């Protein structure tokens, strides 16, 4: 996507935020912090509430409805939030603010914030694949070599075999990572079947190759492993946190 004009600098209150229409129905929240500007989706990923009505202290954005919070720099969820915010790269050109849409890897919960060189290497390993509605990504028992990052569409998981299957969750946000058995040791095969519920575009990446890349950049690798462990915990956890 070419960069899009969003607003003038003067339209954004100092250390505040405002919502703008970037055209084609795209609503963007722009926030200021000192000399910097940040841009992200304008509605809460939880219940489509306007985030401009929320609270912003110069670094943390809070939705007033259920107090979900994010780091405005990365869109990473904080506290009670269950999902990241879709962030854009905000560019200031003279008096105008433009946005660039980042790739699914940058949006993702797993790789946001790692070093640019490492991210570029992982990007180079990614193959973009398109699947039709009903397309199967993998079956139970298939080798777990690759993991996937959702770019668009929707993927559902089924566990069990033959006619004794039941749903086991679904993916619908750009940047969501699944098939992460490929990043784990001693998880050689798939434990669920993954099917596209609608036409979907995915980045497919070999797990071992990514682990090799991360070994050469332990700081980034540490960040990714921390994120991966909280990702897994979210699927296993009880509601005790709240």
């Amino acid at each position: 996507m070419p960069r899009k004009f969003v607003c003038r600098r003067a339209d954004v209150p100092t250390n505040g935020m405002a919502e703008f229409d970037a055209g084609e129905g795209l609503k963007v929240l722009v926030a200021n912090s000192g000399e910097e500007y940040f841009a992200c989706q304008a509605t809460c990923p939880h219940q489509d509430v306007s985030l401009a009505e929320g609270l912003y202290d110069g670094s943390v954005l809070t939705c007033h409805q259920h107090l979900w919070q994010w780091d405005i720099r990365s869109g990473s969820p904080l506290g009670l939030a269950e999902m990241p915010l879709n962030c854009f790269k905000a560019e200031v050109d003279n008096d105008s603010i433009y946005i660039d849409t980042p790739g699914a890897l940058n949006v993702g919960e797993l790789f946001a914030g790692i070093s640019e060189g490492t991210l570029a290497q992982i990007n180079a390993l990614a193959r973009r694949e398109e699947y039709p509605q009903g397309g199967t990504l993998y079956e139970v028992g298939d080798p777990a070599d690759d993991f996937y990052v959702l770019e668009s569409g929707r993927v559902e998981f089924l566990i069990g075999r033959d006619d004794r299957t039941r749903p086991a969750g679904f993916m619908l946000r750009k940047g969501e990572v699944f098939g992460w058995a490929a990043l784990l040791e001693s998880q050689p095969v798939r434990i669920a079947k993954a099917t596209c519920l609608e036409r979907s575009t995915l980045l497919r990446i070999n797990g071992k190759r990514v682990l090799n890349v991360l070994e050469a950049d332990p700081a980034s690798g540490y960040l990714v492993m921390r994120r991966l462990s909280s990702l897994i915990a979210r699927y296993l956890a009880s509601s005790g946190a709240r």
Partner: protein
Amino acid sequence: MATRPMRIQLNARNRAFQFPATENERILYAGLAAGINLPYECGSGTCGTCKARLVSGEVDDLWPQAPGRKYLKQPGEFLMCQGAARSDCSLEVANFVYNMDAGACLPAAGRGTVRNARRLTRDVISFSVALEAPCDFDAGQFMVMRVPNVPGYRGYSMVNYERSARRLEFAVKKKPGGGVSEWLFNGNIEDKPIELFGPLGTATFFPAMAKSILCIAGGSGIAGMMSILERACQEHYFDQYSGHVFFGVRSMKDAFFLAELSRFRTEFSQKLTVTIVLSDEDAPGDAAQRYPALAFDRGLVHEAAARHMTGKYHNLRAFVAGPPPAVDAAIRMLLLEARLTTDNIRYDKFS
């Protein structure tokens, strides 16, 4: 005629659940009664938090005018608190959903009879519900209730606290045009039957949390705080931890529970403070004499709390309840000025 319960299949972001629902049973209540922590906030049609998408099957909408329907955006979406299954159904919620924790008080349907109804002020009534079967709830929780000849449920916080309670106490503010509220205020409700579902709500207090507590209540929002204070006092919590209560009303004649708050304060005068905050008048000259254990202040309740609490937010959890504008203002203050983390702000909005 006994009918077979319908089978509800609920697909969440992280996993799927199955639970039974009977005819006319609200799907939200059926799932909660099965120990599944479905998303909800008010449980009575206003907040929109329990929205789900119907994938297959048929659901009756029991309240097509529910205000919470304004949060429905996609085709097939409905409010689980107002939806009753007419067939086996498959639903989807775009949330992470888990089973309730071990030790949670499992919500269930119950019945009771109104007792001891009396006016506390010109627009606040208190009453008890004598339950047919005892019920466990956590301090700070609420029940949704349904009264004869009024459609739909409304949520009210319990004032008392006891395990295996045979009696629940409530304090309710008059809401013109509110069906349940009108019923409570107009006519003789003594000995009338009431249907309940609950307990509900996560703005709960447990002694094991081991933190100081701050209660900011507007009007009848004090109800749940009374339950929290009752439990804390029963367990001598304020021997060790501080408690700060700010109770906002318009004028002295709108205040209630002052004798009860005085009793809590007198028993734990070292660490518990209670401030009555009047928005429309200065405290009358005799207030301090009538209630020597209480402090009085003038202004909005969250502003009074901000003035008195500076420097006292360390290791503290805040409970907030009252009308939505008061709750929103208090939350804003607690996040931006007090710098509390969101897990230490527990609130109920009576919208």
